């Protein structure tokens, strides 16, 4: 060994140290990345909470928008009511449709059809929301004008892949022994499916639906072309256009009026709080239902 003079970099203990230092460096970068992600979330939520909180009062929640009247105390009650109608209608459209597709795929469909439908819904999930808005514009709005029905339909198209995926995933978890038990006592297949298999999936379907509702409640793009030109005041009739929270935030944030910005922040805070509560509920439902299915399988 002594004949060859090793350069310091080639001494094994130094190389090991170098590798360790490099490893430390990469670990530090991973910590930094996590810190950056948490920082940005914190900053966004903090900005919204700080600016929105002071605006949240009874007037904001119970009075509605009056355009071009800055002196009148204004709220966004019309947008809250509208969002409620839109999301409710969308859920009513997407939920049965999504569950039925999932039932067909998991319980009846032959393998090639199964993957074709799965792929189709994956593609649908990837279609930009603004394109779906334009699609509904061409399909309904051009002929019949803007309405909450059109807006809700656009939202339902966005919800559909979520509901489908959630249902099909829990259906796959339901143990075959339950299906066999149903058929074994002589129940026909449809009764086994509706009476034994589907009830097992309620928790999972609720989780998926809650997540889909949280997602869709904040969607602006599909509503711009289908349900954005709403008259003043609270409206419950879905055959006309109604205001909604995300569209209100979009319009108010594009305005030059500082009082409009203040209301945009408050509406954004309400939206974030709603989504936070919905996500937490979904998480709680998910753990509960998984435990239940596991127990049923035993």
């Amino acid at each position, binding site marked *: 060994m002594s004949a060859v003079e090793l350069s310091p970099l080639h001494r094994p203990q130094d190389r090991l140290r170098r*590798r360790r230092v490099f*490893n430390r460096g990469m*670990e530090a*970068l*991973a*910590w930094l*990345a*996590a810190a950056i*992600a*948490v920082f*940005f*979330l914190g*900053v*966004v*939520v903090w900005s*919204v909470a700080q600016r929105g909180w002071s605006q949240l009062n009874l007037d904001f929640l119970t009075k509605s928008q009056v355009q071009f009247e800055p002196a009148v105390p204004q709220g966004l009650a019309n947008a809250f009511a509208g969002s409620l109608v839109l999301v409710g209608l969308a859920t009513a459209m997407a939920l049965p449709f999504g569950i*039925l*597709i999932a039932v*067909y795929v998991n*319980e009846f469909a032959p393998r090639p*059809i199964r993957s074709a*439908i799965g*792929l*189709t*819904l*994956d*593609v*649908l999930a*990837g*279609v*930009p*929301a*603004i*394109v779906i808005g*334009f*699609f509904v514009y*061409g*399909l309904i709005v051009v002929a019949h004008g803007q309405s909450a029905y059109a807006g809700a339909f656009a939202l339902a198209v966005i919800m*559909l892949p979520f509901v489908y995926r959630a249902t099909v995933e829990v259906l796959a978890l339901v143990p075959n022994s339950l299906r066999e038990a149903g058929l074994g006592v*002589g129940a*026909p*297949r*449809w*009764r086994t*499916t509706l009476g034994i298999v589907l009830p097992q999936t309620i928790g999972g379907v609720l989780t998926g639906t809650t997540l889909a509702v949280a997602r869709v*409640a*904040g969607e*602006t*793009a599909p509503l*711009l072309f289908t349900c*954005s030109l709403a008259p003043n005041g609270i409206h419950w009739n879905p055959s006309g256009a109604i205001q909604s929270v*995300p569209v209100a*935030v*979009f319009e108010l*944030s594009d305005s030059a009026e500082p009082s409009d910005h203040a209301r945009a*922040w408050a509406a*954004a805070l309400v939206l974030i709080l709603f*989504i*936070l509560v919905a*996500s937490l509920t979904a998480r709680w439902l998910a753990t509960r239902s998984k435990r239940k299915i596991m127990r049923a399988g035993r």
Partner: protein
Amino acid sequence: MTSLDATTDAARRPFPGRRARFGDLILQGTAGIAAVGALVLVGLIVWKIASGARPALHAFGLPFVWHVVWNPVHGREAYGAGSFLFGTAVTSIGALLLATPIALGVALFLSELAPGWIRGPVTALVETLAAIPSVVIGLWGILVLAPILRDHVDPALHSTIGFIPLFGPSSYGSNVFTGIVVLTIMILPIIASISRELFLTVPQELKEGALGLGVTRWEMVRGVVFPYAGGGVAAAMILGFGRAVGEAIAVALVLGDGLGIHLNLFDTGQTLGGKIALNYQGSGSGLETSSLIYLALILLVFSILVNLLAQLIVRRAARRKGLAA
């Protein structure tokens, strides 16, 4: 509720017989119709967008895609997607370049490094970031982020690395760079949470085997985790990219609605989705509306291709893993 009557009726019989099979037929039929309905729905979307774009397709043809013009003045109407295609490409690629390393860092942190008590809360936080609506990120982007970038970050970047043409002089807070930052915040949690799940599927014995050979943790990640999860990470990046390309609301608010192709990131710009979103009040002529739908058609075709590509990668990776197991 005739079906309920049928239930009790059929159940009372010793042999369910024809009525039960009739019930099977009804359930399978309705479920099958719903499934076909999903296929029809996607077909209808493609057809409706394509037919809405037809007048613009007739008037401008394929060169629409790269023409840099948007002139709604009556009599001299001319439209092209070039400027918005460029804006979409720059903002999405920029966001992907910024978001991917951070997202992979977050995913590695959550799957390999984080102590137990940090792991749960940070995972939940990252998923919450993914759930914040784009309109709220856009609101924050235009009222909070844009002024900060305009007053502090943009001038600093221009004076230090301004010799790169990307970092030219800045004047507005609403510019392409702000759009890139906003999109980064939106796609980071998507790439991070998918990658985290992939990293967790790497078999423990492979990781322990590598560590047992005396490699450092980073070398184990590079030699075992990345090759194992590589395909999935690529798919996650593609999905994040697709999301950035299709985003309309947040970028419409922060990009400043500019026209033209320029290298300077601190200049205004516009994306395909943003251009569509800002014209929602529909005051334009028929040809302008049709041209907007042409923009949507470009987005639609792109999103379908991107998703098929991601699915292909995922399925291939799954099959390879299935063979290896």
